[in-house]
């Protein structure tokens, strides 16, 4: 696929359809891949990469890139197209300035999962018939491909591209995913258990803001947490309350707009399952206000900017029974 992508990108550069290519750049090892903009065919040949380890969702970069001169080519995985579409809906990306090629999605490999197996010194990772062959400085290691699948791909919601100008590979379908399983599991716990679970997770937070900054739905010019006039600007979680506050508000601010792309959990240096907070909102919205998938279209009203006269009362929460 990578070769075909480079070839197509070069063609589109050559015929003037686009003047830049948004893609990913090789790093020092197999896995340290950086989103990058390529200007020339030479750069593409040299550094462009799109393989099993290329996870980053590049749609947020297109906000800035689509405001520059000329048109940019973007390769979007199915999940990325939802983010892209949501940004179109919010008038953040100038659609005409982006040429979208839909590419097949994952499952992608998360190197953290390889490292969690105690494999260190990783130099290269190859998928040979669903067995990963990992070259390390200490010799060759193997592990099953499926044990290294990134968290966001484990519960893939759709292999369908919701927006594209052309497609490479075959189009997939919206999947019947298991993505709410963990949310449900937590819902079935007692309040004390849930509290302990989230304290354990959120107390790990170092307030690096990676989850916020990587999020394609977090596109405010100035974030409420950076604004001293908001009364809640925080630089560090000086108290457990502030950890809760930050994560509740972060998730709330993208409720109804979060496409569940999973970037927040992917980038968290402390491996906090932040996507569960977003999924809780998605699950609630689906069950209380009807199925809604952010980014699936560009015209519908988002659940939090919409209402029905016979919406349920907040007492549904209190009626859930014993805690």
């Amino acid at each position, binding site marked *: 696929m990578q070769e075909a992508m480079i070839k197509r990108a070069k063609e589109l550069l050559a015929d003037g359809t686009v003047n830049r290519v948004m893609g990913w750049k090789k790093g020092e090892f197999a896995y*340290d891949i950086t*989103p990058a903009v390529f200007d020339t065919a030479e750069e593409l040949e040299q550094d462009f990469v799109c393989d099993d380890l290329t996870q980053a969702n590049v749609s947020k970069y297109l906000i800035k890139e689509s405001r520059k001169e000329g048109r940019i080519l973007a390769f979007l995985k199915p999940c990325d197209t939802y983010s892209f579409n949501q940004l179109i809906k919010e008038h953040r990306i100038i659609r005409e300035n982006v040429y979208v090629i839909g590419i097949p999605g994952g499952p992608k490999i998360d190197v953290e999962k390889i*490292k969690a197996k105690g494999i260190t*010194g990783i130099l290269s990772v190859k998928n040979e018939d669903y067995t990963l062959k990992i070259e390390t*400085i200490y010799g060759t290691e193997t592990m099953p491909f499926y044990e290294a699948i990134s968290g966001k791909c484990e519960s893939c919601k759709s292999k369908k591209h919701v927006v594209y100008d052309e497609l490479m590979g075959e189009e997939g379908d919206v999947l019947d995913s298991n993505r709410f399983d963990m949310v449900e599991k937590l819902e079935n716990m007692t309040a004390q258990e849930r509290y302990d679970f989230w304290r354990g997770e959120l107390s790990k937070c*170092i307030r*690096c803001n990676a989850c916020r*900054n*990587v999020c394609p739905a977090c596109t405010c010019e100035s974030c409420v947490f950076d604004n001293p006039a908001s009364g809640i600007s925080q630089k560090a*979680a000086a108290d457990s309350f502030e950890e809760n506050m930050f994560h509740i508000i972060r998730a709330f601010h993208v409720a109804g707009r979060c496409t569940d792309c999973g970037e927040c959990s992917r980038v968290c240096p402390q491996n906090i399952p932040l996507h569960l907070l977003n999924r809780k909102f998605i699950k609630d919205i689906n069950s209380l206000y009807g199925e809604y998938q952010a980014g699936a279209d560009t015209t519908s009203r988002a659940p939090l900017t919409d209402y029905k006269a016979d919406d349920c009362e907040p007492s549904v929460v209190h009626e859930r029974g014993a805690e």
Partner: protein
Amino acid sequence: MLKIAASRLNELFDAIAEKQTLYIPVDREPNTAEYKKYESGMTMSSALNTVRSAKDFFFPQTENLAEFKVEGKSIEVKDIRQENEDFVVFGVRACDARSFSILDKVFLSEPVDSFYKNRRDHGTIVTMACTKPAETCFCTVFGIDPTVPEGDVSVFSDGENYFFLDRTEKGTEFVKSVENFLEEGDAAKLAQVQEQARSVIKKLPLAGLSTDSFGGDKLNEHFNSEKWAELSEACIGCGTCTFVCPTCQCYDIRDFDTGHGIKRFRCWDSCMYSDFTKMAHGNPRTSQLERFRQRFMHKLVYFPANNDGEFGCVGCGRCLAKCPISMNIVKVMKALEVK
């Protein structure tokens, strides 16, 4: 050399913890280690390093500086400082051990930061030699020998035993205090293990990295380099690199109104944040390019300029492993290198 059998390590921990607070790295999840206050029965992590660095022990993410009581037009300042309790950090790696001497250069230079010094005075650092470095390691580039770490006491493992080498007065005292757990041991196997580790270190993928192109005298040539635009283009402006970095020491000072008094605290800050240098009348670093440049210029040029050529990086590799977009000091050094 004095040693203790690996199987008896927890006995030693129990004895230390009886006298003072002991912190050891423990696994939270596989390959995700963090320092925890030792409680009987905990197992020391075998991971190469902790996700967060050990700088927290001396420079915590947040700490209160002072308290104020405001009544009408009058203000009362309360000095809340207290003498710290003695503590031991066990299992610090060579890179983090070096980071303390870098932090010392900032916080112990005049005027001395009493908050930092207080913790430093009361902390004993027991380091652990590396035997299985990762691909992201490049401490040797900064003159660190991971097989012989600095610290108050260095500990070396040959797989079966832990050997103790005291390096400072504090270290000697520490070893003396646990003397009855230690016995004289044969270090022949240890020498073998060290030799093996050194041969791996020589072959690490980043071992060839050179600092020759950097230093205090390379100010304007690097500052004005055209490479910064490309290097910083993907940076999302988060603080991951800063907060996992053992040497990043920038901080913010803020006030918190508790409703019955004001607490002035300081917390880690990141030069990657957009409001880092923002003033009422403007911001000298308007885009992520300038902020990104600041971080690497600080480590590779500004810090050595002010500290006799010592770089502000210890090659621990945390930013390589954790950056959301995998842009890091190694890529910057390679791009800016003058061949």
